């Protein structure tokens, strides 16, 4: 019961690959957006905030369809990619990573923004007077101070990516080895008579992964807190 078939190992590997890439790849943009929301004020800020949080409230399938319209082979941007670089995201794990990244994005931005709002701008001013330019100040002062928020964002994003189904299957279909992540593999197994045992195994793997992620963030968060207090 506990040994994994190649199919399951592949789904697990793919899920980890897609989720890690999705989260790590969108982190810089996430930090930028969080910074804009936390520190700047401009007309249309509410709209910007709304757009970022859209994937959180839309049905994932809608998001997937939207990605198809924009990034599919016939899409606005997708057709350009195809034409210039002979590059297509359809049926690829990269496309799956993008779908996951879009869905998980609001979950990443939120904790980072909250963390940024908690940073005393006076500390950043102090750093400026001590010779640090804006970027250096951000890297040496702000970033370490928002580390807990970053971590939370990463883990939440990672967990959401792991469970991503609707947008992925709509955008890049179900290709074993390329886009058949854990949830999609599980779904496929439930569509076929006789797939229940394997489906259950995948289910347990998913739960184990989720617990591991939550445990990791808890330990890391505590370590950071402890370091600040010493």
């Amino acid at each position: 019961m506990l040994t994994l078939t190649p199919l399951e190992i592949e789904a697990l590997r793919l899920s980890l690959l897609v989720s890690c890439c999705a989260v790590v790849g969108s982190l810089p943009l996430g930090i930028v957006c969080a910074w804009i929301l936390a520190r700047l004020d401009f007309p249309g800020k509410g709209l910007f905030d709304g757009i970022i949080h859209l994937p959180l409230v839309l049905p994932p399938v809608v998001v997937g369809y939207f990605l198809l319209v924009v990034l599919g082979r016939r899409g606005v941007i997708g057709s350009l990619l195809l034409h210039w670089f002979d590059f297509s995201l359809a049926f690829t794990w990269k496309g799956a990573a993008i779908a996951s990244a879009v869905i998980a994005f609001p979950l990443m931005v939120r904790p980072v923004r909250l963390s940024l709002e908690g940073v005393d701008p006076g500390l950043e001013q102090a750093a400026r007077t001590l010779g640090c330019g804006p970027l250096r100040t951000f890297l040496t002062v702000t970033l370490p101070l928002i580390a807990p928020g970053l971590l939370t964002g990463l883990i939440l994003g990672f967990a959401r990516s792991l469970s991503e189904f609707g947008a992925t299957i709509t955008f890049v279909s179900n290709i074993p080895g390329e886009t058949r992540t854990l949830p999609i593999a599980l779904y496929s197994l439930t569509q076929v008579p006789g797939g229940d045992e394997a489906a259950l195994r995948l289910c347990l793997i998913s739960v184990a992964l989720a617990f591991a992620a939550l445990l990791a963030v808890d330990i890391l968060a505590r370590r950071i807190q402890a370091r600040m207090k010493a």
Partner: protein
Amino acid sequence: MLTVCVRSRLGSFQLDATLNAGSGVTALFGPSGSGKTSLINMVAGLCRPDEGRIVIDDRVLFDAKAGIDVPPEQRRLGYVFQEPRLFPHLSVRSNLKFGWNRVSVAERTVDFAAVVEMLGIDHLLDRRPAGLSGGEKSRVAIGRALLASPRILLMDEPLASLDSSRKAEVLPFVADLAKRFAIPILYVSHAMDEVLRLADTLVLMAEGQIAAAGPTEEILSRGDLCPLTGHGEVGTVLSASVDHHDDENGVTALSFSGGTLLVGRIDSPPGAAVRLRIHARDVALATEPPRQVSIRNILAVRIVSVTTTLDRQVEIKLDCGGAVIRSQITALAQSHLRLTPGMQAFALLEAVTVARGDIVDRPAGHR
């Protein structure tokens, strides 16, 4: 040498300030909301004036007309804020070295070990800011700004967040700093005791304007500025120097332009310069040389002016060998003495009524 000439609209008032700050400590004194913090924020580059020019040592930091606005990190200034603003994620040592690391070895003018020793924070180096007391944090903040090898040190009420015992702990360090590390200091304060202790030059600010600027004794002696200096009462500030100590009797003789004064024994060595504060109410007057009185400090003075104020008090300005001393007596007393300008008289300052807290050690090197 710092030259500032700026104009800016700040909320409800207009800031219009021109000042020069040379070596030593220049205090910016005034009530809350008079624009002091805004002014040094402009010098630091954290706030942009509408018009004007800021130059330090021939380097233009800001010039509205020429479109120059050097960002704070390039101005080579040190800034000690009201709150310590220590970086919580770094150790004390890393905090201290934060600005230090940004400066090339050739440009460093301050020695790490010297600063640590002067501030007495050697035992704190490996700790984190969270575990430090208020006074310790202030000292580290001062050290951090100093170690950035600044051309000028800006201090915005750095002791404001401390209680009086902490303040008493840290104030000597600031005074020492000015002496040891030849860096000009621009010190914002609304506490007169800090100004008396530290300032060579005093700049008075009110409602965004500079009311007066000049050597501290001079400014503080001007009666017309009393409302601004907020003494609460009229007084005199004198500079004197230690003549000798009388250990047997526990007194120190201080000499000034008008003669000698005796005060309770102080620690400063002979020849050291001190600043004296004499409350006008502590100066009694006599028209004849008093005999057999307990007061030891009796000076021959000449009456300069007599002014009746509210409250049946009379303010009398005295000249004592060139130094100005102020006295305040009741109208009743005046009606008996009938003092008039030009009269010779005697001022009695009881040795022990010149409160110890008002005798401050002034840094050597005064012009």
